């Protein structure tokens, strides 16, 4: 694996950039570093991104140099997160009002709605990282045949729980928000609860399966 680049992001953050294209092995190494770095002195937050990692620290307690060194050492230690993550099943109602773009995805992919649901529920997805909204997972593992470009006009309001496809990605919107993904279904599961511990259903490293509780086509 190539050597990562560690860059400063202002006076209070560092980014470890692997430069690699997204791979699971690289991501597993980053999860292992993230778990360690969260306990280092002066570190305020550790954010895995897509094949990169950002750490925030107290700039009056550290100039970041020592932390950069520790990041490098952690990377070189070659440990891969053994954590396999939890398995989380997400029940989804596909099509109908819950998935208004299922037809559009069918048109684009040339697959029947039933085949789309079959392929979407067949895969085991991995939560690479969480961003955009509390609990919003960036998932790896979408069947390439299901890739469909984003809508030309983003919706002003995507309902909470919506399951969508955006390009070669798939994911779930934990909260209502504007969004441009093709919506193929919706889940009733609550993905974010600020009073729960942990507050989000999904965490980096978790393995997700979508389960069709109903298909309206």
């Amino acid at each position: 694996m190539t050597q990562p680049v560690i860059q400063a992001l202002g006076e209070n953050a560092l980014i470890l950039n692997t430069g690699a294209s997204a791979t699971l092995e690289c991501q597993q190494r980053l999860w292992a570093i993230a778990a360690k770095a969260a306990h280092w002195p002066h570190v305020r937050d550790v954010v895995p991104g897509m094949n990169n990692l950002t750490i925030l620290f107290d700039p009056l307690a550290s100039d970041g140099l020592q932390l950069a060194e520790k990041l490098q050492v952690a990377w070189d230690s070659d440990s891969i997160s053994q954590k396999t993550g939890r398995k989380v099943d997400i029940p989804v109602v596909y099509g109908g009002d819950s998935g208004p773009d299922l037809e559009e995805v069918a048109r684009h992919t040339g697959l029947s709605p039933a085949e789309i649901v079959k392929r979407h529920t067949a895969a085991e997805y991995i939560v690479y990282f969480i961003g955009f909204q509390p609990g919003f997972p960036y998932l790896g593992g979408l069947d390439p045949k299901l890739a469909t470009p984003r809508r030309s006009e983003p919706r002003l309001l995507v309902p909470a729980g919506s399951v969508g496809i955006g390009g070669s990605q798939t994911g779930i919107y934990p909260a209502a928000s504007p969004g441009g993904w093709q919506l193929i279904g919706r889940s009733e599961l609550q993905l974010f609860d600020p009073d729960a511990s942990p507050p989000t259903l999904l965490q980096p490293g978790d393995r997700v399966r979508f389960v069709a509780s109903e298909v309206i086509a």
Partner: protein
Amino acid sequence: MIKIIRAGRINSVQDMGRNGFRHLGICQSGALDRTALAIANLLVGNPRDGAAIEFTLGPCELTFTVDSRIALGGADFGATLDGQPLLPWWSVRVRAGQTLKLNAARHGMRTYLAVAGGINSAAQLGSRSTDLQAAFGGHGGRALTEGDGLSAGALDNPAAPVHHAAAFGVRAPSWYDADDTETLAIRVIPGPEYDLFSAATQKTFWNSSWTLTPQSNRMGFRLSGPELKIKKSGDLLSHGVLPGVIQVPPAGQPIVLMADAQTTGGYPKIGVVIGADLARLSQLRFNRTLQFVEADADAARAALRDEALYLQQIETAMHWLRPAK
């Protein structure tokens, strides 16, 4: 209890924000002007990170149903307490039934009302800050509206000498009184993708006057000015971002991420506003201009240390307040 009679624009409960949950997509939130929040808190005997009300523009009106001590920190909103002028950076006692009015901001954008004991809504994920997007924290996860009642903590802590004093104030950092029609200088450390911009574009970034557009909010300040074109386009992989990061989307108009910024982003980061200048930036009014001035991490830390020292002086002074004889 504080009762909101007239809510004004986006007013919300904020403290210094939440850390430790970004890996779950949970943003920092918290006061945009942390200096003003800290000073207002110190003036009523609170720790600097106590929860207060952040007011944006005006006008607003509220009453107190109990006796307490309050202070305003930030922009001058021409505030009055029962008709008597109340200057920012001034700590006074209030009695039950008194009415605080905030008029239109004379300069600046935001002011903070600190109350002895702090706004004591339940902390969620380590903070009382309102996350307006995710709709939690603060007062029901939303902006304040007419009729809301906010409770404050122990209002009269006899141990705090500050409560024996009558009215008193501090001199705020001079930039709060600066002429805000002039171009504001904001110090910036070049970002990780600085070199994706040509030398000419980098020059344009530093030498131009940028206008703050009214499309700005607590998530991000959108600027307008000359177009900043990246040398070659290509998608960056999403990575962590934080308040102060200046992103350049394909349209070439920079966005400075602020307290409610999302946790990850994928646009090139041309620079990062130094922590000590974020408060200053947060008081810039719409359609006013700023210029970026190149700085480094040493300068950023020096500025933070200066501010910490200044706050420490106020904190120390509060301990020496004695009952008026």
